[in-house]
């Protein structure tokens, strides 16, 4: 079983760190993992993305054209990855930044007001964690608790005071993805 995930957003929205957190958590729970960022000129002012693969077998290609899961933190990422998510896959959309609604009927789409959730807990910098919580609710490749434990070990010392807030944002993102209202919206 192999799951490929692309997380994409503006530089500073935490797309790369959210991917690293998944990779660390996967590794710590005995999976094979790869993480690869976009490192081209697009990083400067455009979108940054990373591809994470979590697998119970050794991983060949670290890149995919068609991910099982995509997380769009902003509109350009929404437009880029909506057509690419594998049929039956999951598309997590930051509805604070994306007012559009996905047209695809053959994928699960979940909308999370990630900026608002993060801001309410102290800082918009935790946007990535709200979408990650939603991802884990819809596709429990790892448990929420496992990812929280990993975060404890990998949050930079300068951000240690935000650990509990990050935990809450993960939980609120998780809850947002399981609320009936969100499910309705995704079936439009």
């Amino acid at each position, binding site marked *: 079983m192999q799951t490929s995930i692309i997380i994409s957003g503006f530089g500073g929205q935490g797309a790369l760190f959210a991917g*690293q957190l998944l*990779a*660390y958590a996967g*590794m710590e729970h005995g999976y*094979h*993992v*790869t*993480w*690869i*960022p976009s*490192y*081209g*000129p697009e990083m400067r002012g455009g979108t940054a993305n990373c591809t994470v693969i979590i697998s119970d077998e050794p*991983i*060949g*290609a*670290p*890149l*995919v*054209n068609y991910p099982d899961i995509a997380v769009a933190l902003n509109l350009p990422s929404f437009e880029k990855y909506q057509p690419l998510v594998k049929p039956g896959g999951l598309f997590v959309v930051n509805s604070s930044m994306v007012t559009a609604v996905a047209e695809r009927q053959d994928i699960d789409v979940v909308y999370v007001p990630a900026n608002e959730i993060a801001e309410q807990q102290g800082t918009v910098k935790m946007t990535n964690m709200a979408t990650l919580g939603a991802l884990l609710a819809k596709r429990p490749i790892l448990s929420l608790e496992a990812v929280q434990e990993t975060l404890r070990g990998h949050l930079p010392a300068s951000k240690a005071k935000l650990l509990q807030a990050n935990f809450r944002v993960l939980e609120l993102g998780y809850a947002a993805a399981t609320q009936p209202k969100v499910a309705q919206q995704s079936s439009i």
Partner: protein
Amino acid sequence: MSKELLKGNIAIAEAAVRAGCEAYFGYPITPQTELLEHMSSRMLELGRVFLQSESEVAAINMVYGAASAGARAMTSSSSPGISLMQEGLSYIVGSEVPAVIVDVVRGGPGLGNIQPSQGDYNQLVKSAGHGDYHPIVLAPANIQEAIDLTVLAFDLADVYRTLVFVVADGTLGQMMEPAELPPMRALRPRPEWALTGKGERPQNIISSIYLSADLLEAFNQKLQAKLALIAQREVRYEAYQLEDAEYVVVAFGTVGRIAKTAVQNLRRQGIAVGLFRPITLWPFPEKQLSELADSGRIKAFLVTEMNAGQMLQDVRLAVGRDVPVHFYGRMGGVVPMPEEIETALAELVNGNGRLPKTILEGKNGHPTR
């Protein structure tokens, strides 16, 4: 020791440190700058030499100097930076001093771009400096192998007193993967041939100049004998699912691991494909490929590279004329996806060893990223 999630460039740098690299000289260039960055703090922390040179030409000559003085020395760069080093590379081989160079290849020609490429195959394997020689060229396909081959590179450089390249590309340099670093080794003593101050011993001379044709020919004969020994002893490759394979994909480095995914997917459909992955690009596993071709079982080879077909020539030489050798490549920093290689392999199988023109032109409908 346990596995850590490591970025390729940093894993290579730390492996070099632990292998006992005493002196690093380099000039920043994407996509390998993290390697130099790691060295800039780590080497100073250990009281070793880190120097950011004014150019790649200076860096390679500093490596030449430090290696002549008996230090384990290295530099790292990316394609155009390696081109600048050509003269120094040849002097290092001509003087028989050990040196390790890491090339994290980017798209070319010219400034090209910073995306992954394998366009330096010929530059490293065939023409890394003037004169008659090949450096040893090691091509890892994952982070653990990048670590292990970096350590091996220093050992091979010492054993044969020659130039050893570790060749990666932007994918391997930038990606993170769990891997285990080796324990820290003690620095090795200065070799007896090194320029350490004459004192009471006979004078040591490190030079690549032989003004007499007879002497230079004698040196070249000695060099060729050494290369023949390396070719005999140091071939490394991975054979994956080749026991019963009828179709074989040949790929190195990043493309080797991508091709493995394609092979796995086709195997699940019951198709007898395998992967032959050269780990040493020089010495090239010529004999092993030749024996595979002579087995009578192989219907076709598919060489796949991130270039216009550079290793392809070596595969053709090894395989000969009895088995067809096809090629599928991407250029300019485009990384082939497993589906593309899978499609090319499947077409080869359906065409009973022949590829349709659309595949050869790269028109098989897969988007690029």
